[in-house]
């Protein structure tokens, strides 16, 4: 029954509570949908038996009148989260066969709240990419297609499998991670909601590290309410992550009052970038008008350092990645390619195990951290980062949230921009500054292009004020009334 897969976390949970259907029925509908849609390549590992066993246990708890916030709800996990005894690949050849002996804090919290695990989702290798084409397991196909054009489109990245699976109704929700836009940009490309929390809101423990000062996990869902519900489960202090914030978790769902009267919405004038399609510009203006109609007050703000955010990011993120990825050495886990000496074994293993984009970033990172270049590149980028964060501090003196497009284009065809890393990097022009400043940001589906592809608008909040961001996102969602569904699912 396809109706099951059109439910949201909130409506499915209510249906389970009212005993209208069982968790096993709900999960089986999703397991079947995954089987029918293997062509999307959204999953690296499917775990139907586990999902159904968990659903059965959920039904028993529900029958006793027990059950957590997500009891009986089938979700899927980006394959960057370590899951005990389940293959965890980061979409890299170098993690061949890796079955973690532990569970990430976030997935443990989700299971503790009653969610059921449908499987592990495809992504860009080590989350490095904006179109999910760098995966060792092949590209993910966006379930959306352009009107009158059957070319396969990218789902965005790096959380491409997460976005595609939620958009195609293969999972009620999915986890994502966002280092420079990897939750928000694919959410925009696939017409779903993607929320990157404030840095420190969710534990990074057990999540394969890319750039530790930027990485943050968050929910990917079909509604703002679902994002609020799931964030409430994922968030919270974890002593195992020393950068996780020792702060109480608010009731994010309660923030959805629909009342934004008097809310000051910052519109950054520098975000009108060259070459941005007119329909994205128009949608952004429409978003401003929607919020204004609901009683908000648009305020022009200036984020002058924005134009330096991408180059700053492409020094800091590779530098951190080159350090984080030094652990893949062919000794403790994953792939080993023999060599005559220890060094040669390392070099052979890493040459065979990493794909082209990962190698590029590790090499750039090693260079900008090397003696003689550290000050000119890495230290310079860290100083720029201070200036970029200061821009936001000053802007938030004049406004409460910031509204921007999520990405400067809609989804593009697989194969486009592949030979030019810099063109690919530009996808994240509106999302990267938010990571550099450690702020929360979320993408809400707001409209379609003339040829029928989804477009997202991004709302950026103050640090640890996801509630105001979610409230504004809820109003935007209601005004946009986005109900379109992808063609391939």
């Amino acid at each position: 029954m396809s109706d099951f897969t059109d439910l949201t976390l909130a409506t499915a949970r209510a249906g389970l509570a009212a005993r209208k259907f069982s968790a096993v029925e709900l999960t089986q509908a999703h397991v079947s949908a995954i089987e029918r849609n293997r062509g999307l390549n959204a999953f690296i590992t499917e775990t139907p038996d586990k999902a159904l066993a968990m659903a059965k246990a959920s039904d028993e708890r529900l029958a006793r009148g027990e059950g957590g916030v997500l009891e009986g709800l089938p979700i899927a996990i980006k394959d960057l989260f370590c899951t005990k005894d389940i293959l965890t690949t980061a979409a890299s050849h170098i993690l061949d066969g890796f079955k973690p002996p532990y569970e990430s804090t976030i997935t443990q919290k989700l299971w503790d709240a009653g969610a059921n695990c449908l499987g592990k989702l495809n992504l860009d290798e080590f989350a490095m990419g904006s179109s999910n084409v760098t995966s060792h397991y092949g590209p993910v196909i966006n379930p959306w297609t352009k009107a009158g054009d059957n070319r396969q489109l990218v789902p965005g990245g790096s959380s491409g499998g997460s976005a595609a699976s939620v958009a195609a109704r293969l999972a009620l929700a999915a986890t994502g991670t966002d280092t420079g836009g990897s939750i928000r940009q694919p959410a925009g490309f696939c017409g779903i909601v993607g929320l990157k929390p404030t840095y420190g809101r969710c534990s990074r423990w057990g999540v394969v590290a890319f750039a530790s000062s930027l990485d943050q996990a968050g929910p990917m869902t079909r509604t703002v309410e679902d994002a609020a519900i799931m964030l409430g489960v994922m968030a919270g202090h974890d002593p195992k992550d020393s950068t996780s914030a020792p702060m109480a978790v608010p009731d994010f769902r309660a923030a959805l009052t629909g009342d934004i009267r008097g809310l000051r919405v910052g519109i950054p004038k520098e975000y009108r970038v060259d070459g941005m399609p007119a329909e994205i510009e128009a949608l952004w203006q429409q978003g401003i008008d929607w919020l204004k109609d609901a009683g908000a007050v648009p305020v022009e703000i200036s984020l002058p350092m924005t134009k330096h955010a991408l180059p700053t990011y492409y020094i800091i993120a590779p530098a951190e990645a080159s350090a984080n990825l030094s652990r893949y050495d062919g000794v403790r886990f994953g792939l080993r390619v023999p060599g005559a000496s220890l060094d040669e074994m390392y070099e052979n293993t890493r040459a065979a195990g990493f794909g082209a984009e990962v190698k590029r970033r590790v090499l750039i990172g090693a260079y900008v951290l090397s003696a003689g270049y550290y000050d000119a590149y890495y230290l310079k980028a860290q100083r720029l980062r201070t200036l970029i964060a200061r821009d936001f501090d000053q802007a938030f003196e004049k406004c409460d949230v910031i509204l921007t497009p999520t990405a400067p284009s809609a989804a593009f065809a697989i194969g486009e921009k592949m030979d030019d890393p810099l063109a690919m990097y530009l996808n994240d022009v509106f999302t990267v500054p938010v990571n550099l400043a450690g702020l929360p940001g979320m993408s809400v589906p707001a409209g379609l292009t003339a040829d029928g592809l989804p477009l997202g608008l991004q709302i950026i909040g103050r640090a640890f004020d996801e509630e105001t961001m979610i409230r504004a996102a809820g109003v935007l969602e209601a005004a946009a009334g986005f109900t379109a569904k992808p063609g391939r699912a």
Partner: protein
Amino acid sequence: MSLDKATVARIATLARIKVPEADLEALGQELNQILHWVEQLDQVDTTGVEPMTSVAAMTLPLRPDRVTDGDRADDILKNAPNAMHGFFTVPKVVE
């Protein structure tokens, strides 16, 4: 700054990634394209600006210096490409 072949080879060694001699030239060009692009940051005067080393304004917490986990050698070795007698193995490093 532009990377020559020798520098690309040196970085590859630092990063412990084998790059065949024949690929050094093309890889160097790719890396140069990225480096030239990030060098636009030189236009920004950052004199007197503190480098951001921590996203959140918080001091890293200390914890008691106690063993809280361990005794899981078998669990951990399960993922090793090669392990023997409770140890990871590597190619011979001492003659």
